[in-house]
């Protein structure tokens, strides 16, 4: 059974009395423990897709299912990393990351251990008692990621999670995410503007058309990655230099470029 399915999903928003079509017939099936990245022009409906999988938004027609069940509400089985972080400003870094575990009824001692682990993973040691407004944008983003990771969810929904990071931190996070994904695979729906990031991280990359969004094509990266032994390279720049990587990147880039070109009107 697919972990996440979009079946003929159509989404219109009503704005100022007129229907505004954001998504038009989106079909996408994500297998359990598969890592799928979505790339597409700004405003094409990537976030809207993710929000429907999360249970914040519902299709106008069509179906979004997770584990075979139609999504009706948000829940901790689908941890979300928001594009705008959405940290609780009145909670410390520690408390922000801890809330999900508290809601699950995890005992205090275990909570402390798991939060500490997530904090170490995200390189946030020493900031446990800081408030979000005392952190840089990149650090806030790492707290948001830690808050999702710590739940150890079946499904991770990540909306441009590395967008606010500087180039170096971003690379570290990408490598870390790949390590995590290989060691402890889970279903990931990952939105990004970076084609490199998508090719490096994902098993498959879905390219969306400009608004109203549809899935234009899905590029299968995993067979290439396995055949060409990408995972033997510890560093992202070594992978990016591989001919097989460059080839896929160029292909997706062209596909996207056609979309952006047709946007002029």
């Amino acid at each position, binding site marked *: 059974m697919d972990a996440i399915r979009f079946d003929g999903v159509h989404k219109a928003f009503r704005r100022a009395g007129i229907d505004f079509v954001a998504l038009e017939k989106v079909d996408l099936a994500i297998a359990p423990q598969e890592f799928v990245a979505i790339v597409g022009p700004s405003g094409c409906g990537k976030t809207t897709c993710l929000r429907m999988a999360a249970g914040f938004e519902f299709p106008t027609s069509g179906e979004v299912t997770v584990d075979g069940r139609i999504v009706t509400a948000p829940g901790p089985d689908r941890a979300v990393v928001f594009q705008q972080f*959405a940290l609780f400003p009145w909670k410390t870094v520690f408390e922000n990351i801890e809330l*999900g575990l508290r809601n699950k009824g995890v005992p205090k001692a275990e909570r402390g251990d798991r939060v500490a682990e997530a904090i170490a993973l995200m390189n946030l040691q020493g900031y446990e008692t800081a408030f979000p407004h005392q952190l840089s944008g990149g650090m806030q983003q790492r707290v948001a990621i830690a808050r999702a990771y710590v739940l150890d969810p079946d499904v991770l929904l990540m909306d441009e999670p590395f967008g606010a990071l500087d180039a170096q931190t971003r690379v570290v996070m990408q490598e870390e995410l790949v390590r995590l994904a290989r060691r402890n695979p889970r279903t990931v729906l990952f939105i990004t503007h970076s084609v490199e990031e998508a090719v490096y991280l994902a098993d498959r990359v879905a390219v969306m058309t400009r608004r109203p969004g549809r899935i234009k094509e899905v590029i299968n990266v995993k067979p290439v990655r396995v055949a060409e032994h990408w995972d033997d390279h510890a560093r992202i720049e070594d992978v990016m230099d591989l001919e097989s990587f460059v080839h896929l990147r160029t292909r997706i880039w062209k596909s996207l470029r056609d979309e952006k070109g047709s946007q002029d009107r």
Partner: protein
Amino acid sequence: MVSLAQRPLTSAETIGYGAIGLAAFLALWSALSLTGLVPRQFLPGPLEVVSRMVHLVGSPFAGATLPQHLASSFLRFAYGFALGAVVGIPLGLLMGWFRWLDDIVTPIFDGLRFIAPIAWVPFAALWFGTGVGGPILIIFAGAFPPCLINAYRGARFVSRPLIEAAQMLGTPSRRVITEVLLPASLPSIVAGLRVSAGLGWQSLIGAELIVASTGVGFMMVQAQLNISTATVMAGMLAIGLVGLLIDVGLRQVEGAVRRRRGLQ
């Protein structure tokens, strides 16, 4: 003048200008009363008022000393204010969360809130007497609306992603109110408490002018009957000072909340 208005003032300048304003006010007041331009009975001078006030601190007037009157007023105020907060804040938060509750309460609330607290005096006295209960109802009438409105606004305009984040982390719907709405609304709520305390304190004195057998308002009515204008003014001064103290206290709370939130 233009350059002054555009440049932020140093705190010394702010205090200096404040002192100028106060001095001018006192000078005008003294001039009016001391020169006999206005009869002393109509307007006692500043010195006379202050010395009367000092006198009232030690010797009873209308059955109690000034501090005793103030204590009795303040206690009533504290009850009414606390009641307004305890009812207004949770109700406002719930109205911000449950649309149906908003729809039920808003028409009633809008219908009642333009009635000045003082207008409740006859019924307050009728239902709860003129001792403690009646005045508390009147303070409540003044203190309750800002508590409710600010809690409601705070809850209503909580950023959506924060609610969604809490839901995604498995927070049950009921607990979203305490986990997100309340803390997110806190800056708005404490701002409301300041307004609420001001209105409550004003309403109380108004109420005491009509009902009650102790309190600063009562003392002033008795003074008026005795044509002791200096006592009336000493009462006004005391009301102003205590009101200021309450506001300064709550301003500290507000500042602490905002600083903790990184809002200033």
